[in-house]
């Protein structure tokens, strides 16, 4: 196999689902949407290694795997770690193989999870990847501060002069933040004003909604145009708010 154990992190980064599985049939399928062929196999999932929430309970199931053209087909009875992407969802699940490792390569992760509070063997790797994302997101921010929310108010009518009425309108609000620590950016400790969309429309519901007395690490982005008249910064991305404990994570990752 071209991938070695050192590629686990890369494979987890590239795929949403991995599992330790045993090949039960080659050239077969469990889903009509995925025709059986030389490059299909049915694999029994022994242990889910990492997965989106909806697939963490996949263990014990049989999944159809569209095997990678770049890897030798597995043999019946072979156990391996399959790194996959979603392909079809029906009575069962079909996945597309992106990478594969020998079962031994992930055995330490599987045995370690039994002694930890992690829900899945690759949970620690996923945290590392999330922390990398945290650093990248912070690097893109104009300021990163630790602050507590001391005031909330609608910004004007919630609508800039150029905005139309729409069910998808953001409904702009202002949060007053009392900054106790400046991690990044040209800001002095004290009070600053930050804009956020208060709408819970699907376009905006993931944007942070500051709550009274809420403390956190805030990743601030400079406003432009009409919004700049209301506040110098805005928060739109779900990761623009982080629990204050994440400051240590950010600082450690940047060292």
């Amino acid at each position, binding site marked *: 196999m071209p991938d070695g154990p050192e590629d686990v992190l890369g494979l987890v980064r590239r795929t*949403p*689902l991995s599992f330790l599985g045993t090949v039960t049939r080659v050239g077969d399928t469990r*889903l009509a*949407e995925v025709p059986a062929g030389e490059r299909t196999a049915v694999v029994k999932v022994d242990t889910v290694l990492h997965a*989106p*929430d*909806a*697939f*963490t*309970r*996949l*263990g*014990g*199931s049989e999944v159809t795997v569209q095997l990678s053209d770049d890897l030798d087909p597995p043999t019946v009875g072979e156990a391996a770690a399959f790194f996959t*992407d*979603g392909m*079809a*969802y*029906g*009575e*069962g*699940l079909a996945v597309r193989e992106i990478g594969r490792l020998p079962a031994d390569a992930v055995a330490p992760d599987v045995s370690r999870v039994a002694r930890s509070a992690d829900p899945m063997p690759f949970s620690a790797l996923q945290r590392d990847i999330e922390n990398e994302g945290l650093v990248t997101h912070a690097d893109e921010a104009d300021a990163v501060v630790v602050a507590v929310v001391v005031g909330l108010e*609608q910004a004007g*009518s*919630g*609508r800039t002069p150029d*905005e*139309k*009425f*729409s*069910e*998808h*309108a*953001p*409904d702009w609000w202002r949060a007053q933040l009392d900054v106790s620590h400046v991690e990044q950016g040209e800001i002095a400790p004290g009070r600053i004003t930050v804009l956020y969309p*208060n*709408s*819970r*429309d*699907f*376009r905006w*519901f*993931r944007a942070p909604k500051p709550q009274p007395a809420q403390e956190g690490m805030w990743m601030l982005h400079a406003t432009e145009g009409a919004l700049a008249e209301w506040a110098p910064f805005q928060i*739109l991305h779900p990761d623009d708010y982080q629990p204050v404990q994440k400051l240590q994570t950010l600082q450690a990752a940047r060292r």
Partner: protein
Amino acid sequence: MPTLKVVNITPAALSGGRSQDAEPNLAVNPESPSEIVATAFTPDPMGGPLAPVYVSTDGGQTWGLRSIIPGADADTGTGDISVGFASEGGALYAGILSGLHRPKVTRMQILRSPGISSTAPMEILVTRDSPDQPWVVAASVRLHGDIRDRVYVANNDLGRQPQTAAVDVSDNARTAPAPAGFKPSVIERRAPSGQDGPPVRIALHPDGTVYAVFESWRDVGDVGGGILNVTFDVVVTRDDEGGLGPNAFQDLKDAEDSGIGQRVVAERTERFNAFMGQERLGGDLAIAVDPTDPADVWVAWCDRGGAAPGVGCTLHVRHSTDHGQTWSSDVRTVTDAKNPALAVSTDSLLGLAYQQFKHSQWVTTLELTGDGWQTPAEHHVLHQAPANVPRAQFFPYLGDYIRLLSVGRDFYGVFSGNNTPDFADFPEGVTYQRHADFVSHQLFDLDNVTRVPPSIDPFFFHRAA
């Protein structure tokens, strides 16, 4: 003897799903009605860049999920999405608001797929910023021996203030390269108060007559919190040549002011973005034409007329038998209702589906009438469930629309609702694919052991003649 079936279309493979799969839409292939595509605010199950559609090839008995829509958001899939099959050839069209929008701007895209068997990402034909609520209706016409797909994408184009009600039309959508002949036509010809309302809907007759209906906003009062007091007219426009000429949708003039577009009703009020049963209100509209008579048109909308003080939202249905020129008074009203959907079968049976907030429940109903409710209609409660379960993750909670279609004598529809497995919630019965125990009223995860809390799922229904 007519039959009715209701199916929860979430596949078994997504038994662990908890997403708010709201605002459903539906397309049935008229040539092969066993081929059905449904959509909702459903994200790709693995967080991928393509949003899924629900696909059935057995008439809606079983469903799978296939990610083929570009522009997915990780949490909601696309934004607004609607779909339609051409009447011949099996091509599928979609109008979406891309999930990959820039802040403050909606991005409408019109998409094409060669057919239900295609697993390739849909081809992007049109991309335009600012339109809202794209609504797809497709048909096929024979021209000089060729079959052409005539596709309409109604939308509220907020980039064309103040006359925002619009329809993008293509006379050759199946084969032409992008933008596949799509051209926008503004259908609002009066001077609204800043803009029109979000929903613009289309009804297409096989002879080429095409109707469009929209809410012409006459006055808007901002009461804060994103809530508006809106006064509007319901306006119907018509084009007798398929909406293709230089003066499209101008064949119906108002009997009173001679303006383009007949006002079905004027000076109605709504409280736009107000709440009822965890759901937001505003902009409910539907239109249908009798496939056997292009003069026979039905319109439904919701307003505060006749509603109790406060929010209130009353559904009204009216009827025209002269190509939309004159309209009846209300032939049907339903209090505290939203999401009207209309369709007429080839035996001139009118279907009305809607969702009503009643006794703290959301109740989804299908009514069928052959005489405009002069005699009691065939009445089916498809679903009834507590309106406070689950808690809304975002708006819309159930959706700003549902859809009802007719193919021949049959009706097909889709709605979203609380997915608690309880036969008391489904008076007409229901079939689930995801793991569900109707004795304990409990959903279960893929392992059939771990409990899964209720969420909002799409439900398909089919009333076979």
